[in-house]
């Protein structure tokens, strides 16, 4: 069965509108070209190799290239740095160390725990120590190898267990979520069990690595082209590094070659150092580490150890749960606080825990400082919740799906999360019911159990359904704001700018669709321009799946401001009521008269009406108090579910993913094709995280998997043989989001948890489903085979 099916995505033509459903949004029938499967705005450039990324920008004559020298120990102090030989290399223009820098602080919160370049303490192997600037990148890179650095080396703390043994120092305070009395619930529950799950980290493996290109301007100003998800923060760090006001620094991002969270804080160091060198040398400076250095020196998804205790009954009802989520955070805080918080926010997934206590431990280790990555701790939290379900299923002998449904959040009751926010939009049961039907789950599960029991070969199959509920909003409430800038020129063409960044997710396309919808013009009339801190200031990172929600709304407000002016003008000019001014199909209906959009704009200009506006949006309703663990951190939740079927080879541990069915909701989708793309891509990335993507460090703290030769992300041939992806077309956001759409960037990543559970189901067959496999992640072939061996040994001793 070699078909790829994607219902809803196979729209070849741009003008294929989704059929409009019941009017949750009164205006929705007028919202074209929103809700249509428009292609990515740069697609025609991508395919032709004509979409410039930072490294493709023309280099002014005299451009210099920087390269970083990295530490070769994981823990200790630098005793001496001798860079004479580096300086003596051909084409080297400058060598820069911590001593040259004034403001030497790259830490995300400016708490001073992460220097740009270190001169004293070494926190991890691969930490930047010095920078070489030369006339070519090759020369700079080669020159780095001539450094002589002496270290006083200490034993590194490399993982969660070592960190706990060493006293459990944290990089930032942990958090506790508590509702009800979990201890009492455990004590009173008919049955209890406890266990541990190890959850691996993940490298972003954005195809375009970190890069920044700083071009000095007049009078101490600086333009930096950077592959960053957070231009405003990068701008501030550049300004700090230069000791200049932020107003003298402009950050510009046209597009990134992937980011996934890996360029939320990690891009700052490169941009700041490039700018520092450019300022010092009075020449443009570009910095681009090679893939190995990128993987060694920049942060990744946190790996976790989740310890759990469960109180439950024989019917699969869960009475109480206690969790400790300990994370390897690395040598500095970076974003580890909010990441580990978000793990706790998802320790419930779609389940109501009657009594719960969840504690996070963001532990200090001598490894690279872990950072944001699609899901931002949420996936790790959710994997813990699903393990709890699985444990109860094996303990009770019930179908895991039965246990899941028994513990789902309720409607109007049993709907309070561990952080005391009420779940008001729980559409999951409908999704699960529809998916069970479309995937034929029950029959396939029966058949698999039967064939596994009858099988005398070495292959076994497994199947699992796992659900997703993901909270949308930055949990630091103040970040939930955005700005946009819209100009209309007198020929009717529209210039759009907003604070979000384009990293492949189609944000620019969606926001342009929204603006085109407001003016009732074809999408082509809206020109998207590079994100620039000079146009929209003080923006939040494009992260937390919020890009379209926030920036789409800000752009909508900006466009509506101008539209209102045009309406007012038309009303004044033509004496019709405002309701009779309608923007549609590039035309404006003014009473009985119809004029072209450009015509009206030209008239408005002549009448001295402003054709430019900013827009500003902040998410309503949300608040969060970390200290008390209570609040309403999420504006809404996004839901989905997946059924995966796998086949494992019990001799080698190798496996294939045979079939995956996904039903996911994105509200009234702004662009179904782009949303399907996010689901397919997010699923693939999640599958990689839980299967073949394994980060391995040696005992010295050296990352051994720092290139695609050793770090294996999924290939086309790893994708499910049959892959059915559908949007829940009935879905509408219950809050007034932009055209009632829902965020899509992160939630689908976690649909891949179904693959881990299907693998676990297949593994469980070797002990006739009597033992919970406790399959940790990533489930590499080696890990699968070793788990099979353990289960076989355990079932022998049990008999």
């Amino acid at each position, binding site marked *: 069965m070699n078909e790829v099916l*994607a219902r809803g995505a196979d729209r070849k033509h741009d003008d294929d509108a989704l059929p409009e459903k019941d009017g949750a949004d009164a205006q929705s029938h007028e919202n074209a070209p929103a809700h249509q499967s428009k292609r990515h705005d740069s697609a025609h450039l991508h395919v032709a190799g004509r979409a410039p990324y930072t490294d493709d920008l023309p280099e002014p004559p005299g451009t210099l290239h920087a390269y970083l020298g990295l530490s070769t120990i994981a823990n200790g102090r630098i005793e001496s740095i001798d860079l004479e030989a580096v300086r003596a290399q051909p084409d080297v223009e400058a060598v820069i160390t911590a001593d040259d820098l004034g403001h030497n602080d790259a830490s995300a919160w400016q708490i001073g725990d992460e220097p740009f370049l270190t001169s004293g303490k070494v926190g991890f192997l691969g930490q930047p*120590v010095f920078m070489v600037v030369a006339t070519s990148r090759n020369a700079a890179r080669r020159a780095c190898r001539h450094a002589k650095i002496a270290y006083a080396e200490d034993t590194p703390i490399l993982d969660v267990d070592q960190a706990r043994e060493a006293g459990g120092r944290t990089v930032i305070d942990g958090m506790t979520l508590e509702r009800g009395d979990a201890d009492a619930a455990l004590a009173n529950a008919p049955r209890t069990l406890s266990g541990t799950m190890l959850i691996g980290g993940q490298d972003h493996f954005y*195809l375009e690595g970190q890069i920044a290109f700083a071009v000095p301007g007049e009078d101490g100003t600086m333009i930096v082209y950077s592959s960053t998800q957070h231009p405003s923060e990068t701008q501030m760090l550049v300004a700090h590094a230069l000791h200049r006001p932020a107003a003298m620094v402009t950050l510009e991002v046209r597009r990134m070659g992937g980011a996934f969270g890996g360029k939320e804080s990690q891009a700052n160091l490169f941009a700041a150092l490039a700018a520092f060198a450019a300022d010092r040398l009075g020449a443009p400076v570009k910095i681009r580490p090679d893939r190995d250095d990128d993987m060694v020196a920049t942060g990744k998804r946190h790996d976790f150890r989740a310890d759990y205790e469960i109180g439950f009954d024989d019917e699969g009802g869960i009475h109480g749960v206690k969790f400790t989520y300990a994370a390897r955070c690395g040598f500095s805080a970076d974003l580890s606080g909010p990441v580990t918080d978000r793990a706790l926010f998802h320790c419930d997934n779609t389940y109501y825990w009657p009594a719960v206590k969840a504690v996070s431990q963001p532990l200090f280790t001598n490894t690279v400082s872990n950072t944001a990555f699609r899901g931002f701790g949420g996936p790790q939290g959710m994997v813990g919740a699903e393990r709890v379900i699985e444990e109860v299923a094996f303990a009770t002998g019930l179908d895991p799906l039965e246990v899941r449904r028994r513990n789902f959040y309720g409607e109007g009751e049993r709907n309070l999360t561990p952080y005391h926010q009420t779940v008001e939009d729980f559409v999951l049961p409908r999704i699960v019911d529809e998916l069970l039907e479309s995937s034929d789950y029950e029959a396939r599960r029966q058949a698999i159990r039967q064939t596994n029991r009858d099988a005398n070969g*070495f292959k076994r199959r497994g199947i699992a359904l796992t659900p997703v509920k993901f909270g949308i909003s930055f949990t630091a409430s103040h970040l939930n704001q955005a700005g946009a800038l819209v100009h209309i020129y007198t020929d009717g063409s529209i210039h759009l700018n907003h604070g979000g960044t384009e990293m*492949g997710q189609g944000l620019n396309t969606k926001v342009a669709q929204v603006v085109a919808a407001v003016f009732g013009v074809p999408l082509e009339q809206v020109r998207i321009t590079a994100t620039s801190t000079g146009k929209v200031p003080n923006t939040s990172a494009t992260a937390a799946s919020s890009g379209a929600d926030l920036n789409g709304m800000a752009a909508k407000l900006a466009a509506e401001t101008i539209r209102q002016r045009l309406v007012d003008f038309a009303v004044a000019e033509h004496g019709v009521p405002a309701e009779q001014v309608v923007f549609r199909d590039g035309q404006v209906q003014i009473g009985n008269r119809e004029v072209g959009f450009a015509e009206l704009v030209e008239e408005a200009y002549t009448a001295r009406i402003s054709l430019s506006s900013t827009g500003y949006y902040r998410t309503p309703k949300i608040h969060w108090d970390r200290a008390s663990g209570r609040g309403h951190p999420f504006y809404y939740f996004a839901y989905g579910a997946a059924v995966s079927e796998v086949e494992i080879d019990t001799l080698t541990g190798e496996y294939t993913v045979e079939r995956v069915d996904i039903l996911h909701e994105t509200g009234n989708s702004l662009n179904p094709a782009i949303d399907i793309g996010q689901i397919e891509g997010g699923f693939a990335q999640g599958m990689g995280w839980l299967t073949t993507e394994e980060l391995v460090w040696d005992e010295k703290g050296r990352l051994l998997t720092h*290139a695609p030769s050793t770090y294996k992300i999924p*290939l086309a041939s790893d994708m499910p043989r049959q892959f059915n992806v559908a949007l829940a077309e009935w879905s509408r956001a219950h809050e007034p989001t932009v055209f009632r759409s829902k965020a899509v960037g992160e939630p689908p990543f976690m649909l891949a948890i179904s693959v881990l559970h299907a693998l676990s189901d297949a593994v469980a067959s070797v002990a006739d489903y009597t033992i919970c496999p406790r399959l940790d992640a990533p489930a590499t072939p080696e890990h699968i085979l070793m788990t099979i061996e353990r289960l076989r040994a355990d079932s022998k001793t049990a008999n």
Partner: protein
Amino acid sequence: MTANAPDPSDSALPPPIRRTMRFLLNDRPVFLDRVAPDDTLLDFLRIEKRLTGTKEGCAEGDCGACTVLLGTLDAQGRLHYRSANACIVLMGMIDGAHIVTVEHLSPRGGPLHPIQQAMVDHHGSQCGFCTPGFVMSLYGLLMRQPTPDRLAVERALQGNLCRCTGYAPIVRAALSVAALSGTDDPVLAERPTVTKRLAEWRDGSRLEVSGHEAASGNAEPGGATILPSDVPYEGDVSESEGASDNRILRPASVADLARLFEDNPAGRIVAGATDVGLWVTKFMRDVGPLIPIGHLDELRGVEESDGALRIGANVSYTDALDALAERIPAFAPLLWRIGGNQIRNMGTIGGNIANGSPIGDMPPPLIALGAMLHLRKGDARRDLPLEDFFIEYGKQDRWDGEFVEALSVPLPSPDAKIAFHKISKRRDEDITACLGAFHLMLTDDGTVDTIRIAYGGMAGVPKRASAVEKALIGRPWTEDAVESALAAFEEDFTPLSDMRASADYRMLVARNLLRRFFADTQDDPIQTEAAQ
């Protein structure tokens, strides 16, 4: 022309020497007087020519963002295009070739090429950074196979990573493109002129060029950048001391190669550069004087005589899929799991052997089949059993100035049971954690007459499982015999733990592969994992 045909230019006279390198880049000829051994095609395209559509994602041949097409004439003068990773193609290798980059597929502002249009229509790009590489890989596929099925598409894309899309829309796009025609395809349209130009350039000359002043000479080891420890096996590090020799010496013929290499034993032969290219991009090693040999068609033949297949050193994995797998079908599933398509197009069997890696995929099967290696130095030739070539980790039985000319594989009996099983973390485009190669002959009554078993990834060299073989020979081929032979693995191997696998897993899986082989022999014919 075949590997053991008499060398046409086997004369005492050295060929004429040319000091300007020449090749076609898209629609233009390029002439270069200065080229360094470690200049890569990708840097040339991006930095010199500012053809920035070709991307760098890894600089080690693993991601495919840099995929270009390489057009060359075969021995019969026919023009063939294959995809290659520009990041590890060294400039010295492309003399006389046609390089096609993504920019060539569609005119600026003009209509897109049908493959590009399909990628747009099916939403096949998100961030777009991988996209030009995918377009070029699909282009290479459609040139060979006008209407590929899904399996062919997946195989063609094994060497291309995409982190955004999950591949589904790319596969949909690939399956939707109609067969290419000269009207919308520039390369098809240019074929005659390109063929003519490349043929004119085949003038039997030797190319000698050198680079600019060496940028830095030999780097001192132990510096501050991290030396990758995953060593895409560095090969024999017999580096010349002192100042680097930045000449490129491109022989006109095999005879010329023999002469050149004997005179310049410190020279670095490069065939497909799928190992050597990484020494340059990852370790910044000196590779001069560079002796490119990939163009020598005389080393590219596969020929049957006296019950053996003689395989030229330059036979690529892609070539082998036709010529070798046809005669010995067990090779097919293994070859499809070596590298990605770009690597299979460039990487050679001779290079895989000469490189001496314990995790190269060709030696264990070839050893199991009893292959002989044919070495040549100047006019002197010697043969030795392949397994004797690998002395210890990093050390092979190859003299200075000696090169691999070919190897001979005795054609197995039709009754032989043969299987090659590769274990890796990811199924495709991954380096072996453990590879077992099995070659069994039973007597009429079902006892083991001969069995040759060789493993990769289990020791410092590709190695026979001699103790296991001994435990099986003369015994009936039964599950009991196999189970009792498993203990002998301890005698043969003490594998290591690394980032690819633990020692325990290697040992367990090595044993299980013998079990798998036994099970497979119970149903005839042997089904390897080819059954996809």
